[in-house]
């Protein structure tokens, strides 16, 4: 993307409109939070939370603090670990179900019965089962992403245009060839979409698990941004809560973007039209 195009995009009317809305939001927040100290009247809800300016100040202090960045690292590692485990197991599982009718009819109902159980409901069972708290978090994280990826892979594989398969067959391709050269690439876009959504879910689960195992007193793993937030709450430093929230938001957005770019790289044919 050349510089002029980038400049056009950044200074476009659309961009400014977005900025305006966000600014208004921040202003209302700031005024609402500070109102009590200015005029003595506590605005409901907003009046109870720290103001953006205080949050920003707090953040400035945290940037120099290594333990803050440690939290980032721990959360990221859990997310990536669980996510990749889910991909490695989920993609083949989904593809196999799409390709083999019998396996699908056997495994899918069981899968669908287990799916509505929220991953977090697995936390206690997971903690009992796995030897370390870290593994129990990893398992729950894995579950969260696993369901999404499998569903998306299945959906993608099922909607492959039959004619692609028939074309390959008529050209004399073996079963394995068809799988490798037709089914796999054709499902790739769905895998990418599933991954992006799964990544979001993974973050939700990691943060939840960190808060629960750290905050619920079940003797868990320390660290991570979720734990950071919970700790800040318990410790009474409310500005840090918001810092933590924003940090996770950024981290989550960043990882989804990276995934989308990676996906774009793997599926260049989608960029045309």
């Amino acid at each position: 993307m050349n510089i002029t195009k980038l400049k056009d995009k950044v200074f476009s009317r659309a961009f400014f409109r977005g900025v305006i809305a966000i600014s208004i939001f921040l202003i209302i927040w700031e005024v609402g939070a500070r109102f009590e100290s200015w005029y003595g009247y506590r605005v409901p809800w907003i009046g109870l939370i720290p103001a953006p300016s205080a949050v920003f100040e707090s953040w400035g202090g945290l940037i120099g603090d290594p333990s803050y960045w440690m939290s980032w690292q721990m959360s990221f590692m859990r997310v990536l670990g669980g996510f990749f485990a889910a991909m490695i197991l989920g993609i083949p599982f989904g593809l196999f179900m799409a390709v083999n009718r019998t396996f699908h009819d056997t495994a899918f109902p069981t899968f669908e019965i287990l799916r509505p159980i929220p991953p977090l409901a697995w936390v206690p069972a997971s903690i009992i089962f796995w030897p370390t708290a870290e593994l129990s978090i990893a398992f729950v994280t894995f579950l969260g992403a696993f369901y999404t990826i499998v569903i998306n892979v299945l959906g993608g594989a099922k909607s492959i245009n039959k004619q692609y398969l028939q074309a390959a067959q008529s050209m004399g391709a073996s079963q394995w060839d068809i799988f490798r050269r037709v089914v796999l690439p054709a499902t790739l876009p769905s895998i990418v979409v599933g991954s992006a959504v799964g990544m979001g879910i993974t973050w939700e689960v990691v943060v939840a698990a960190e808060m629960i195992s750290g905050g619920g007193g079940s003797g868990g793993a320390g660290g991570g941004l979720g734990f950071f937030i919970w700790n800040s709450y318990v410790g009474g430093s409310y500005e840090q809560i918001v810092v933590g929230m924003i940090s996770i938001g950024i981290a989550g957005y960043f990882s989804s973007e990276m995934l989308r770019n990676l996906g774009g790289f793997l599926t260049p044919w989608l960029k045309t039209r």
Partner: protein
Amino acid sequence: MNNASLQASEMTGMALTMYRISTWFKSPKPYLMLVGVGFLLAIWYLFVEVWQLPRFEDMPGLTEVVTEYFSPDPIYGLSVYTPEYYQHIGISLRRIAYAFFLATVLGVPLGLFLGWSKKFHEFIFPLFEVLRPIPILAWVPLAIIMFSGSETPVIFLTFLASFFATTLNTMLGVQSIDESYTRAARCLGANGWQTFRHVIVPGAMPYIFTGLQISIGVAWFSLVAGEMVSGQFGLGYVINTAYTMVTYPTIVIGMITLGVTGFITSTMVRMAGDFMMQWRVRELALGDN
């Protein structure tokens, strides 16, 4: 059209459902399904109770759970015979109902406008996208600080999750409507509002309902998390308490109940969608032509 699909095209409602069920039973599907589920249960039984494999020995076993679940006087207090069981279910369902209803009422119109008006989208969507990546549970402390009591924060969290999912999917739905439809409407003399009412809203309906199914799943997810952390009563609370009180079979009972209620509510949403979009049901039943 062969005989079977000819009949199908003339059936509606109940008859169509019965027809679909009967064909399903004639296929190998139900039996394979039983094999799959049976396999899972068998593994559970064998690993925990019969062979007592290393990591599995502390887990509640199949027989233990089943006896507890169906016993009139359960050891740990919850079974299909105890009123508390249904109270917990009821409370969770009530919270879901409030949160989901509010999220739908606010999210669908917001999503529709975000998709329909470019101007509105330019203003509001960036703000929306900045707030959306923040995981729902990260809101817990803030929710506790902002709202008094223990009910409201939980409902708020559930609402938030559901709201984001509904709005986003509705917006994407509007954007997915084939532009030929809006163009045709304009040719036929419809003004902006008429196009919105007669084309955008019905056209986005299928996507809205898919979004609502996702949304209710997300709602359950958040509800359980919220209940585990800050609620009293409710299924999430049941599971968490069972864990801390070391009454493990109840954990499984809680999980199973969650699975079943989650599935039922999701199906209810889908059925509501089918009911409201008769045209789509019939179109799908007949396949592409």
